[in-house]
């Protein structure tokens, strides 16, 4: 489990600033929604569904990034179908 974060560090080792900026905007967006979740902004139904779906998809992508590049590779396994 301690190595789960390795996927992030290997996303783009030669473009750390780009990854950092993207991460910053994601954090800002999440913080905006956190601060406004109790406000009286009434989302239309499609808006609420879209928000929920996109949040779920984003979480899935985060999990995929964590899983990718995980585990020790077997140097002898060439043809993985």
């Amino acid at each position, binding site marked *: 489990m301690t190595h789960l974060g390795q996927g992030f560090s290997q996303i*783009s080792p030669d*473009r750390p600033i780009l990854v950092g900026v993207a991460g910053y905007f994601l954090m800002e967006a999440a913080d905006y929604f956190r601060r406004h979740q109790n406000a009286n902004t009434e989302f239309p139904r499609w808006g609420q569904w879209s928000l929920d779906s996109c949040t779920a998809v984003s979480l899935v992508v985060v999990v995929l990034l964590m899983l990718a590049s995980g*585990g020790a590779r077997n*140097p002898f396994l*060439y043809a993985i179908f």
Partner: protein
Amino acid sequence: MRVIRVRLIRDIAYTVGMVFILLAAFETGLRLAGVHYQASLYIAEKQRGFALRPNSEGWETEENDNYVHINSDGLNDREHTRARPPGTLRIAVVGSSEAEARQIPRDQTFEAILERELSKATGKPVEVLNFGVPGYGLAQEYLTLKNHVWQYDPQIVLVAMSVFTVLKNVRSIYPGGDPGNVPFFTYQGGNLALDEQSRQAAEPDPKRLRYKQISSDLMNRSELLSLINEARLGLQRRIAEVRPPQPAETIAPLSKAPPSDYMQVWPYLETKDSQAPVDPRLQEAWRVAEDLLRMMHADASAHHAEFWLLTLDMVMQVEPNPQTRADFQQRNHLPTLLASDHRLDAFAQAEGIHSLLLAPPLSQYALDHKASLHGFPKNNFQGGHWNELGHEIAGKLIASRLFQESPSLRALYSTRE
């Protein structure tokens, strides 16, 4: 009622659209960040177990990031006509990942350098065809030569193998465990033939192959889909790491199991006191290797082609730091790192096979120039395949030796005047 249904459909459509936009944003973000995941460039095959998938393309990312195109005949090479163009010398290179060379751009591989050097030296067109497939052992290379190479009518065949390839000749000591559908030759009544398991291998399901081709092509073109595949493989690797070892090993290990670092197999190929390996399975592996090379030589002779054995180097043989080499030899009780190479060379000489050992000259180059011939910045030059420099030096060495000794080249050169 109708209004409610229309609104429901509209809301679902909006939601799907938003998710689609988000996925497109992720795809764009991954591309902008320069993220690449390993492409799927293989296809299952009954005869050789697996092969490169024709017309596939994608990123190689294990050691170095390089975009790979497989041609319509399943070669990591440009397109070649089947018929040899008049006046052209054709050289076929058969081998494993070292020959296939997917880590670097095609025009920098030793095959490309060999082609350029020989064309320049002879003033005649020379084509070098790359039949290398990562992971192949000599059995698969023999089947490649027998069933795929001759349709291109080469005059020279180069078999490029490292001593590590010897280990791939016996099912029970195949590096990395279960070899799956990889074919093996065994002795039956004193003759070398495909073993029962290889003969009975099932023909891959055409529908499954078609599905595989479409899904892999889609995956190779999308970083997001590649990410899903990479996560799937990563999950499998993690599960394998935490899964307790199987209690009933079907394969009895060698006296000491080969180390996971395949570049350190000398202790299993060479012994302290003798060049002859002591484990009976290693003896079998050497015997099969020599007989497969004999069969390839005979096949080349039957097609009136010159046959060359290129014994490639292994990482420690060309380690630029002499102290590191010495430490390795001392740790593994190895008086030399060239015993297996010399064994192959002596075999080739005895069989009348043209032989070129690459380790000694490459070793000298690495020491003289303190240069790493293997590895890339991505792995901090810690082993792996030849880098651009390794290919360049090897390509020039092979070209020089062929130019000096190849009768086919001499014949071509003599017609220059």
